[in-house]
């Protein structure tokens, strides 16, 4: 965790923070607009502040806003957020090989903070989980620095959005910067033909099934993409061998 000196005194902590800065403007704009959107949709500033501090997930917050305003049942709101956050569960499976070196308390502590950018930048910086305790410390220090700055920037910009809600018109659509940040990450993941196929199938399925309640279209899209990829990976369509 980032308050552990063994992490923040490690050089990898700084490297993690530097990498976060590469996508920070998108995160700040997204955080700002999420704060603005919550207040402008009619949530009280107290509730908007609590949501920013506790949830720390822009896409789940945005998905929850209309449901909260409409007075939807709590379980529907939670189920919707779960579907929107399914991608994190998928990331966590990949991260498991890095995490199991640490006690559960440490895993949960850092796990809460691993957002989209942090996952992608971390596995890009550490393609293989280390076997040595030195390497594992470097991984944890990097992840701590990377997550810390991302979290801090999100909180500051989100709370600024709550305060400035009356001054920033939603019509400007600044929140699109957050979509572009995720979109840029998506582009960076397009390294093999199979991944591009997975993206295309999931994207098409998510749009086609958009009318499903509780964002179940996301579950449908993941299932469709995985099924199609498993079927065609042994065929010539798959192109070059997937290496990671």
């Amino acid at each position, binding site marked *: 965790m980032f308050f552990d000196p063994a992490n923040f005194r490690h050089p990898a902590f700084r490297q993690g923070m530097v990498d976060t800065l590469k996508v920070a403007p998108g995160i700040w704009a997204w955080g700002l607009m999420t704060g603005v959107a919550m207040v402008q949709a009619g949530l009280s500033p107290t509730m908007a502040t609590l949501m920013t501090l506790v*949830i720390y997930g822009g896409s789940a917050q945005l998905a929850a806003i209309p449901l909260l305003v409409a007075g939807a049942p*709590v379980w529907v709101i939670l189920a919707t957020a779960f579907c929107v956050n399914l*991608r994190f569960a998928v990331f966590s499976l990949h991260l*498991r090989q890095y995490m199991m070196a640490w006690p559960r308390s440490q895993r949960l502590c850092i796990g809460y903070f691993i957002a989209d950018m942090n996952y992608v930048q971390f596995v890009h910086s550490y393609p293989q989980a280390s076997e040595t305790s030195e390497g594992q410390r470097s991984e944890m220090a990097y992840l701590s620095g990377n997550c810390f700055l991302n979290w801090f920037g999100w909180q500051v910009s989100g709370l600024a959005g709550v305060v400035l809600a009356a001054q920033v018109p939603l019509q400007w659509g600044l929140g699109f*910067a957050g979509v*572009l940040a995720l979109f*840029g990450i998506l582009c960076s993941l397009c390294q093999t033909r199979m991944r591009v196929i997975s993206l295309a199938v999931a994207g098409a399925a998510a749009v086609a099934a*958009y009318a499903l309640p509780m964002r179940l279209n996301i579950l449908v899209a993941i299932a469709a993409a995985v099924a199609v990829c498993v079927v065609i990976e042994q065929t010539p369509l798959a192109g070059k061998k997937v290496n990671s």
Partner: protein
Amino acid sequence: MELSEVFTALGLGLITLVTRCFFFISERELPFPSWAHRGLQYAPIAALAAVVVPEILVSHGALVTTWLDARLFGAAAGAGFYFYKRGQGQAVLGTIIVGMAVYLPLRIGLGW
């Protein structure tokens, strides 16, 4: 603020924790068959695409039916920049900046 709102916010925070830690909460071996292991390597990009693609292509609950949508041009410009700069450190940041530089004038200026 009502108590039910507080519980909803805390519940959503718990969802964040549980989903982000989902597969490393337990120490037990994961009993996945081999096809599932192969399939799951395609899941991260699918899961992200399932969230991002509708944000660009869906309007009022259905696929966009007009070209006059600033998101389409912003995303296209961003992708164009990314693949032009591919492999360089600031490519994702550039995607955001170039995309917004195209998106904002269309959105604020022309109201697309």
